[in-house]
């Protein structure tokens, strides 16, 4: 269907845009930048800050004026007002600029303005606006109401003093993620963003996905910075420091160094990590391949037995946390296979330790993740300490890694590429696509096809049906006559729909409509993770996604079961069996359990 186009005038220029476009985007089409602060393209326009105000010219009501266009007294918010045909808009005049400036002055009067010590310095939207508007003096007295930071979760820090109440975090948490941990609480100047009843985040429904921190325009919500712990471990002569990097990190960390989103920096990251001082550098993509071996055989077993279907992927700790709180009736459907992070760490402190004769107690494993929930995952229950101590010692987000590289004085952009270390470093294309929505499913299908049919390769290795940015993707995959019904969802807010479909099937006593479901909590999958460089939009996500698929295509081996180091692992260490096939070692090291948790869990 052809989109209806409308024309309007912005600053005297005629602009043609599709019907339904906001004034903000119409102006963009006319190469005019209207400043924004609370607006983010991922979210419903919040209209709270009032920076994007513009003026409409309307025909004068005074008959003497003969229909002359005069400024309307009320300003419009460009972010949420639809451009209509024949509209006349003025985006910049001294009055409008003054109103915008007043808004900034009012916000700055309530803001600590300690930019030098702020984790968002340099990437703060308020800071850039203040610079753009040339704010020097403020007519309003300064008053910052102090609240203690919320450090109750291992993942994110909520620092209300810096909050400008733009409402993005609440919108992300409620609408995008369907978590409902953050809300406007209180009224007037006492308004704060926090969980209902003022409970700490750790006692709230928060799933630690960190999307609030990735969307916050200022430094009011940020990752729990644990770089100091890693620096300390690197200084400790007793420790052997191992490190792993997740798939999505390699296509995003470059953004912190001025590279384009999606630029592949795998080899540079390996090199930088060695320069920082890590003893061995591994790749989470390796254990992603292991995950496929474990989860793939688990799926084939359940599918052939027709038991506990649908199988739900469990690589994403924010999703598992959501399910344990909001859908505990699905704990039995989860794949018991641990996430690639947890598998790799467990193998570091068992398989690698044994092969290299290092005491696991003296091994320190750092994991670099695009994710804040991973910081929570490492201590979520006793299964995360399968080797007798906590398997993963510290999780750093992509943002923290960038900071470490900068602090170490590494010229990242021109760094020669290096390779990962042996035993836990090789990966296939199937492992790397774990970083995007649909990737786990696609990797599993590639291997499952071969295991079920005994053929060397599926007819097409690219399963296009599971790719793309649709919130829910469903398909029926034909494996030589065997029909497998699958669903892929990303961004938590899209998941409940599928869950409810299965609940309906259960109620009706029919076979569940899906056999296998992949869920990733963040939009676009891990490439859009809460620990990635902030303020990503769909445009950025698309570039990162393209980077991941490029990495997949560049791999000679693109199916997990072909990874030679994976084959070696099973042969040399795991008695040749996966957990689902009764492999005891594999079961102990690579599997876990899920259980119901209260949405609000108050300490007694």
């Amino acid at each position, binding site marked *: 269907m052809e989109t209806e186009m409308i024309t309007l005038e912005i600053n005297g220029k005629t602009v043609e845009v599709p019907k339904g476009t906001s004034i903000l985007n119409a102006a963009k089409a006319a190469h005019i930048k209207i400043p924004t602060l609370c607006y983010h393209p991922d979210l419903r326009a919040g*209209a709270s*800050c009032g920076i994007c*105000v513009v003026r409409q010219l309307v025909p004068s009501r005074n008959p003497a004026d003969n229909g002359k266009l005069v400024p309307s007294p009320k300003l419009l918010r460009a972010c949420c007002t639809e451009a209509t045909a024949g509209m006349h808009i003025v985006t910049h005049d001294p009055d409008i600029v003054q109103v915008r400036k007043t808004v900034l002055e009012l916000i700055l009067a309530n803001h600590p303005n300690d930019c030098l010590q702020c984790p968002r310095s340099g990437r703060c939207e308020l800071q850039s606006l203040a610079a753009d508007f040339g704010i020097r003096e403020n007519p309003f007295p300064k008053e910052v109401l102090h609240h203690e930071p919320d450090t109750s979760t291992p993942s994110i820090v909520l620092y209300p003093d810096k909050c400008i109440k733009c409402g993005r975090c609440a919108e992300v948490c409620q609408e995008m993620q369907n978590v409902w941990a953050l*809300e406007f609480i209180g*009224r007037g100047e006492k308004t704060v963003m926090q969980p209902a009843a003022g409970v700490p985040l750790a006692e709230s429904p928060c799933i630690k996905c960190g999307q609030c921190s990735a969307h916050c325009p200022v430094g009011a919500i940020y990752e729990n910075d644990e770089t100091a712990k890693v620096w300390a471990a690197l200084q400790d002569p007793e420790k052997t420091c191992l490190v792993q990097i997740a798939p999505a990190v390699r296509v995003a960390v470059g953004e912190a160094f001025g590279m384009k989103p999606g630029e592949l920096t795998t080899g540079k990251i390996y090199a930088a990590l060695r320069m920082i001082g890590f003893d061995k550098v591994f790749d989470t993509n390796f254990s992603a391949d292991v995950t496929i071996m474990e989860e793939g055989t688990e799926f084939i077993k359940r599918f052939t037995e027709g038991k506990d279907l649908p199988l739900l992927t469990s690589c994403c700790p924010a999703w598992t946390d959501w399910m344990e709180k909001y859908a505990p009736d699905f704990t039995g459907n989860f794949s018991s296979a641990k996430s690639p992070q947890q598998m790799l760490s467990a193998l570091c402190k068992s398989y690698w330790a044994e092969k290299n004769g290092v005491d696991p107690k003296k091994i320190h494993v750092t994991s670099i993740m695009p994710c804040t929930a991973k910081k929570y995952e490492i201590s979520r229950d006793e299964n995360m300490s399968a080797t007798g101590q906590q398997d993963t010692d510290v999780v750093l987000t992509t943002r923290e890694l960038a900071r470490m590289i900068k602090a170490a004085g590494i010229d990242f952009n021109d760094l020669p590429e290096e390779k990962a270390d042996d035993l836990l470093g090789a990966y296939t294309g199937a492992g790397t696509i774990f970083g995007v929505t649909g990737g786990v499913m696609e990797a599993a299908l590639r291997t499952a096809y071969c295991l079920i049919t005994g053929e060397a390769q599926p007819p097409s290795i690219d399963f296009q049906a599971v790719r793309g940015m649709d919130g829910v993707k469903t398909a029926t995959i034909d494996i030589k006559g065997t029909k497998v019904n699958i669903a892929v969802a990303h961004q938590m807010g899209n998941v409940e729909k599928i869950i409810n479909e299965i609940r309906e099937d259960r109620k009706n006593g029919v076979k569940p409509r899906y056999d296998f479901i992949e869920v990733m909590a963040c939009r676009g999958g891990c490439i859009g993770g809460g620990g990635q460089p902030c303020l990503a939009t769909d445009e950025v996500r698309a570039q990162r996604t393209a980077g991941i698929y490029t990495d997949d295509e560049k791999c000679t081996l693109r199916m997990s079961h072909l990874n030679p180091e994976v084959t070696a692992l099973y042969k040399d260490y795991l008695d040749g069996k996966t957990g689902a096939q009764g492999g005891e070692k594999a079961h102990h090291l690579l599997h876990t359990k899920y259980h119901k948790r209260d949405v609000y869990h108050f300490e007694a």
Partner: protein
Amino acid sequence: MKLVFGEGSCGIAAGARKVRAAVEKLNTEGAVEIGITGCIGMCYLEPIVDVYDGGTLVKRLVKVQEKDAERIYRAVAGGGRGATALPELADLEISADDKEFLEKQTRIALRHCGLIDPEDIAAYEAVDGYKAIRKVLAMTPEQVIEEIKISGLAGRGGAGFPTWFKWNAARNAKGEQKYLICNADEGDPGAFMDRAVIESAPHSLIEGMLIAAYAIGATRAFVYVRAEYPLAIVRLEKALAAAKKAGLLGENILGSGFSCDIRIKAGAGAFVCGEETALIESLEGNRGMPRLKPPFPAEKGYTQAPSNINNVETFANVAWIILNGGAAFAAMGTETSKGTKVFALTGKIKRGGLVEIPMGLTLRDVIFGIGGGIRDGGTFKAVQMGGPSGGCIPEHLLDTKIDYKALGATGAIMGSGGMVVMDSHTCMVNMARFFLDFTAKESCGKCVHCRIGTKRMHEILTRITEGKGKEGDVELLQDLCNGIKAGALCGLGQTAPNPVLTTIRYFRDEYDAHIREARCPAHECAALKKFSIDPAKCKGCTMCAKKCPVGAISGTVKQPHVIDQSKCIKCGQCVATCKFGAVTVG
């Protein structure tokens, strides 16, 4: 003989139930019939007891105390004297002067207030109650809307939008399920029109809502009433139950095929929930924060379905308009404002209470004619119209007509009907500060303009009232006001600057006196008060020196005393203590 006790919240607060209990204790034989009614509207005379003989009001007793119960009972229980004057109660009887308060009013929305038992559906039906809905059920919805259009009824909640237009928009909006909502979240300080209607004649609200629901095609309706109105909620619950029992509510009303259910939702005390979109959010169980408009509720309201919201007073007029015709309503008022409007007259007024008058009367008619002017012999200074969203109107504009347009031109608004009268002892800067304190605290916190802007305005006003104002503060206030008016998202923010803008417009000299001379012309701002002792009047009794909590007063016995200004904390104890009027406040 029958004794009817005025038992609105005001009457009960003044002690009406205690008096009734005392009478009931004596009335063991049932010699006297005892009943209740809602708010009569004369707050300043509560508790009020009406004496009826055979359905006729023969005597209105005012400011009745528990101790009066026995002689009232004895006088009335004597019986057999018909409508005799009951001379033994003459001292309790309402004065001819006070009678004017009601006699000068024209009551439509309040037509049943103080006249019927609010908890008895039969009492309402006896005064033509539920006749209008019967008439409406024989009409087409379009005919109903046309009648309302003829009446010229406009929304009484404050904005004054034509009621028929909203109904028509909701009727024409596409949607299977439509909703009707009554806004009874009356939050303006000093306003209590809606409470009085619900407490006194809940059925008139229900009937008005049923007519509106029929007109727009809504089958479900809500009354969003503030939780601070417990009596209103109880009476409305009883009324809904009675109406349901009588087949006037629920499925297939009066066999017409029209169904409508009304439910009560108690608010949680947020001023902003009086704003229609915030109210809808709250009704849905969300935090009460305004939505963007458009889409308007008529298109996407409660649960995104077409919804119509009107205020209590608006609904209270509807049944009357249907029974008497839109033209009768439109015959009252001015060119642009039709019918009557209810005001809650409060402040430094001689006779405060509920006043309903035809549009077009002047402010002077209301304040001096009905309200009796300023109490305690004071002089009129200004009247604040429309609560925190409104503005003040000074003495020289007292002949302004009560009309949406005319009031708007003064910088004030008609508003929901708050009318706070101020005398020469009220400091206008402090008054503006009071309202800004209110709006700053009640801001939902969403818009920067409203959340931080009103707070900064409050700060500036505070420093002015403390004598710490700076040259340029008034201009800074004006700049902020203009920014907030133009930039705030909802009505609460957009109108919050009105009290400041109007006081600057009409009382700029008071601002200047505070800023430039550290002087409060009304002698109200505590920080700017200067206490001194007139040596000619001081007898040297030492009482003030003994009372002064900070030892700021010194002097010898029988000699004039003096106040050390550097120690004085301006508490006013000396003024209260001095028997000779020797302490002056400047």
